[in-house]
């Protein structure tokens, strides 16, 4: 089984968000980049497919050379090899098209991504890829079992969960719950040393199909100061919520 795991390269969650160039570009100055948190769950699950079922595991990122440390980190966690599509990932359809092409040419059986990237929050790439490849797609996946050519997948739905099954190849978008928190992987020294020797292939993008353009960024207006109610007067809070906020 060949597994392709998409790795997003995103600002660390605690990053202060700023924009430059008259608010048309994200300011990456001083930003620490990490593996997209949702992708950590899929990567960890893919690692167990490798360890227990002998899957071959490739990680992929669409991005400029500056994303390579994030791909190396995924190799240090245990992926066998990495592919970087050398392009700015400015549009979800563009990204999905590039990864779908690699996935089809490489004959991957399972394409795994995180349900959403924590920078642009599109939640689109996995579904777009599946549609481009005309393969089954399951979003918000919290459970995955692969038996031969068949995958059984648990997805979160509003107010519950659903189990579905499909034939490989397929695309899934994972999230927290796919593996236990304690089963998330962090690279160890040996992994980091080995990662240096693992192949990281750079391919040039094919075409520049896109569907959107980000033209300007802004920040939500700052919130008004919090109204503090004394802990000796809890009734006042209920009063405010009822009469002022009209929320209860």
């Amino acid at each position: 089984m060949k597994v392709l795991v998409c790795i997003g390269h995103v600002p660390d969650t605690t990053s202060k968000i700023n924009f430059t160039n008259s608010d048309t570009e994200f300011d990456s100055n001083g930003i620490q980049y990490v593996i997209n948190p949702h992708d950590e769950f899929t990567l960890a699950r893919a690692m167990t497919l490798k360890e227990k079922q002998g899957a071959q595991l490739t990680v992929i990122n669409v991005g400029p050379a500056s994303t390579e440390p994030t791909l190396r980190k995924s190799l240090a966690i245990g992926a066998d090899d990495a592919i970087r599509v050398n392009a700015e990932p400015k549009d979800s359809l563009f990204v999905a098209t590039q990864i779908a092409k690699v996935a089809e040419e490489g004959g991957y059986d399972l394409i795994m991504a995180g349900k959403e990237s924590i920078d642009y929050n599109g939640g689109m790439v996995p579904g777009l890829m599946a549609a481009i490849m005309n393969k089954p797609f399951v979003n918000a996946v919290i459970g995955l079992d692969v038996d031969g050519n068949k995958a059984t997948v648990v997805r979160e739905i509003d107010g519950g969960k659903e189990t579905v099954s499909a034939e490989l190849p397929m695309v899934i978008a994972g999230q927290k719950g796919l593996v236990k928190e304690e089963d998330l992987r962090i690279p160890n020294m040996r992994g980091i040393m080995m990662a240096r020797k693992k192949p990281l292939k750079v391919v040039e993008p094919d075409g520049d199909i896109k569907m959107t353009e980000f033209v300007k960024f802004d920040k939500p207006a700052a919130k008004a100061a919090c109204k503090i109610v004394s802990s000796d007067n809890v009734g006042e809070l209920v009063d405010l919520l009822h009469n002022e906020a009209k929320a209860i």
Partner: protein
Amino acid sequence: MSVLIYAESWNGKFKKTSFEAVSYGVELAAKMETEAIAVTINSETTEELYKYGVAKVILVKNEDLNNFAANSFSDTIKQVADKVSAHTVVMLASSNVNSFAPVLAVKWDASLATGVIAEPTSLDPFTVNRKVFSNKAHADVVLSKENKILVVAQNSFGIKENEVAGSTEEQSVSAAAPNLVSESVEMASGKVNLMDAEIVVSAGRGMKAAENWGMIEEMADILGAGTACSKPVSDIGWRTHEEHVGQTGKNIAPNLYFAIGISGAIQHVAGINSSKVIVAINTDDEAPIFKAADYGIVGDAFKVVPELIEKIKELKG
């Protein structure tokens, strides 16, 4: 030219988000000087939708669509959109919509924007404002293709009543076969669905132990609220993962959110900052949650919450 609004139903009943979708779509159609048409799949009745301003509803009846699959749902909406020559589809975020919107975008050759929080700022070029960086920022995005899909974020536009006389046309659409099999569905029983809840009572590590959740549940009960928790709480196993809200958990936008014994770390706030009113109860007056909150009490949850319950009971009584 028309605006097609997807009104989602579960087990035949409309989701609240459908009314918001209709409210948004009707205003958008007016702005675009075109007709708004709603489409719904296997809903029991459709009259409810007229209340939000849509006069024309297409009801697709097809047993094969009783189970959700991104493949068959996107195919259905595409066919209806083409039939009514819609170039804009409006949907409200939900687990199913988030799954099939991108598939529809490819099949229908459309531009897709998710996390949309307002009506377009411009129709030419078609530009919408959407959430980015977990709502720490917004972005204006141009949708460049002729066909456009807008997935509006929950509770960002609101529900607007605007009753009209409407009519419904039943259509049979033979959708593409689902390319997966639904094996089973398990719904959390008896509780308010967190994603649809108007009020959410949420608690964090400050509650000290799973046994202490009784008062959180009691408070939720009397408010008809859903319950939620911070990430460490679900990691330790005090509460189930389904309740975890935040950047790596659920993104919610209720009218009222109570954060009890929750520090308000940036990752937590990322999942709840679209709530209309946020109330914080925390012993630490420097807890970052107070920066996100509208109302707060600096105090011990074990003393404050029981009193709060009494006062709410008085109000409701």
